[in-house]
């Protein structure tokens, strides 16, 4: 199929492209930008006037719940939500049931995503078997099955010797180590940031040091081992500052932040709003502003959704007894666009933090519109205002604190490998 996307403002940070250009796609690949190749006859013409045309979004962290928790969501249901949100590549953590500690589970996830055909899924492999933090997983086999990185998620590897060996083993096979930095002993059974709101509500706290202690320990090992390491979901400004210093020293480290940590703070938990129960916890206003600054400076390279769909009951209990996480695929782009309005990022930087940079971190061919590349494209109307309501969400999970927020920016078309997988019909 040949597609011509005409009249839109094409932004492709990888190639420094920003202008009103036509994009030409043939046989699933980008073939030209600007002038039509000789003899190009489009089977499908998409009018993108007043729209922005950019690479399909790459989300570094989205829980799809399959296999194991299909009562919450499935790969098929969340792929639909991803396409609706303009996301064409997403990385799912290894915390499925069973975890992604064998090539069989990794292949199963990839196959089911291919069957759904709406977004590409790249699973992270588990660093240890059963995520137990003790025995190494068969990382070479995971790499072969399609994993580009490994992680132990929040099931932290407590013994630093085992962590060091896991990192060395991962480095052997050119795998990126994804780290969710939270010291489990300092975090204890905490549910919110250990600060003013925690004191007021009498909830148990997770101190900022739970993150900084884990980041510091991990950076020391990275320095020794030299393994490519990605810090997922930073919540404190201090941790970002530590990573900035490490990057300055030449360590191969990167970081991301969730969209909700760039907008919400501990104060949103007042009133015991379980929709704001997330891990790592929402921190102070100063942390939120600090994360925004480190994002603007590029220390934090990417914005992710940390999508965690839940059934309604998971949030229907007193705060501390509810499950953590936000259903976030469909708000990733609008919440990121809000950062442009807030003067944190330029539009081009914002798009880079959702496309090119996460694609590089994940080590996949995506996130750019270079001719010859797979044509994963997101087209959105940056001026479209809409109010988030439950019935607008395609994800199985309706758990979001952003209900009733007026959002700006709406995806109108998503193309995966040159094939339209979503079109917004007004």
């Amino acid at each position: 199929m040949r597609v011509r996307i005409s009249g839109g403002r094409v932004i492709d940070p990888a190639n420094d492209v920003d202008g009103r250009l036509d994009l030409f796609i043939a046989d699933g690949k980008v073939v030209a930008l600007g002038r039509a190749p000789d003899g190009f006859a489009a089977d499908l013409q998409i009018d993108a006037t007043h729209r922005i045309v950019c690479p399909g979004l790459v989300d570094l962290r989205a829980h799809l719940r399959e296999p194991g928790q299909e009562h919450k969501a499935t790969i098929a249901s969340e792929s639909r939500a991803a396409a609706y949100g303009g996301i064409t590549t997403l990385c799912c953590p290894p915390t499925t049931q069973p975890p992604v500690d064998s090539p069989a589970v990794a292949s199963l996830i990839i196959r089911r995503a291919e069957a759904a055909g709406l977004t590409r899924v790249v699973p992270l492999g588990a660093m240890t078997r059963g995520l137990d933090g003790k025995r190494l997983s068969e990382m070479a086999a995971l790499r072969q099955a399609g994993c580009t990185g490994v992680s132990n998620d929040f099931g932290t590897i407590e013994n630093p010797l085992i962590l060091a060996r896991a990192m060395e083993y991962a480095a052997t096979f050119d795998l990126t180590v994804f780290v969710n930095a939270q010291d489990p002993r300092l975090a204890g059974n905490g549910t919110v940031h250990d600060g003013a709101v925690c004191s007021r509500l009498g909830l148990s706290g997770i101190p900022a040091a739970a993150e900084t202690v884990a980041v510091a320990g991990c950076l020391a090992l990275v320095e020794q081992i030299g393994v490519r390491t990605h810090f997922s979901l930073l919540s404190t400004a201090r941790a970002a500052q530590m990573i900035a210093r490490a990057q300055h020293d030449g360590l191969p480290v990167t970081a991301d932040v969730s969209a909700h940590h760039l907008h919400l703070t501990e104060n949103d938990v007042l009133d015991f709003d379980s929709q704001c129960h997330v891990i790592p916890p929402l921190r102070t206003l100063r942390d939120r502003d600090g994360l925004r600054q480190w994002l603007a400076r590029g220390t934090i390279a990417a914005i992710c959704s940390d999508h965690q769909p839940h059934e309604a009951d998971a949030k229907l209990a007193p705060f501390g007894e509810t499950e953590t996480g936000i259903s976030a695929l469909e708000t990733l782009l609008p919440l990121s666009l809000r950062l442009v309005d807030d003067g944190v990022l330029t539009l081009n930087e914002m798009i880079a933090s959702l496309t090119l940079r996460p694609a590089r971190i994940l080590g996949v061919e995506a996130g750019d519109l270079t001719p010859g590349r797979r044509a994963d494209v997101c087209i959105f109307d940056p001026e479209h205002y809409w109010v988030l309501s439950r019935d607008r969400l395609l994800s199985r999970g309706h758990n979001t604190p952003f209900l009733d927020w007026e959002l700006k920016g709406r995806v109108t078309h998503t193309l995966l490998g040159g094939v339209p997988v979503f079109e917004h019909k007004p």
Partner: protein
Amino acid sequence: MDKRNLQLDDNGQLRHFLTIEGLKRQLLVDILDAAESFTSVTEQTVKKVPLLRGKTIVNLFFESSTRTRTTFELAAKRLSADVLNINVNASATTKGETLLDTQRNLEAMHCDMFVVRHAVSGAAHFIARHAAPHVSVINAGDGRHSHPTQAMLDMFTIRRHKGEFHKLRVAIVGDILHSRVARSQIHALSTLGVEEIRVIGPRTLIPAEAHTLGVHVHHDLRGGLRDVDVIITLRLQHERMGGAFLPSEHEYFQLYGLTEAGLETAKPDAIIMHPGPINRGVEIDSAVADGPRSVILDQVAHGTAVRMAIMAKAMQRLPTPPARELH
């Protein structure tokens, strides 16, 4: 989520009593005045008023309690309500029923008020948020968050002994971190406009950013008690030695236990309070607990009248101005 004040109805009247935070001073004063009038009821030979006749009140206790539950029961009966005591430790939740299911089942039996105690912070808010329109919820203690009826009876006791609030300096001593009572007292004292609130304890037992609650933090008992009018000491749970909050009860008593000698810097007429049950020789010396300045038993005695006032207020059965008509 609806961010309106959950405790008030559309007319600004009290509907649920979950936390002192966010309630107006006048409302607290109304409750204290009403409690004053109810103390005369509890001293009569016929100790009943018909304000809640025909109403059904459920004491829904997910955490064991003797005194609080008993005074709530007594308060409800003296208001002529029918009372149901449900100890949920032993029943539904152990069978896997959720909190919401338990609540809906009881609502289906047409109860009018839930008095809730739960080990998790925010449980009373959760129940109130999901309550049927005709149901009121009274928080009888949720986790470390709030125990507003205890705070109100403490305020009642303070007012009886000290009169006005605005000139008072109040010190709260001990495990503030884990105390729902302390949190509610702090909100009540600041709403009622005392001059100064201090909290005294080692840093391990003072919550993060405690100053944002409007208190001065002290780590030295004698300095913290200087010139105070009211001293509230909190119960120290034995479990605190386990979590590395404290080395020993012995050292705690040496540093923060209330003894006659330790009280020297406080005002000579300072009163000593304790929400109970007391650990003699841990947070308070017997000579102080049983001494002339102790009002600990007054606190217990006032529990019923204050809870009657709160229940009547939440069911909007308190005529305004409340005290006058009942006399």
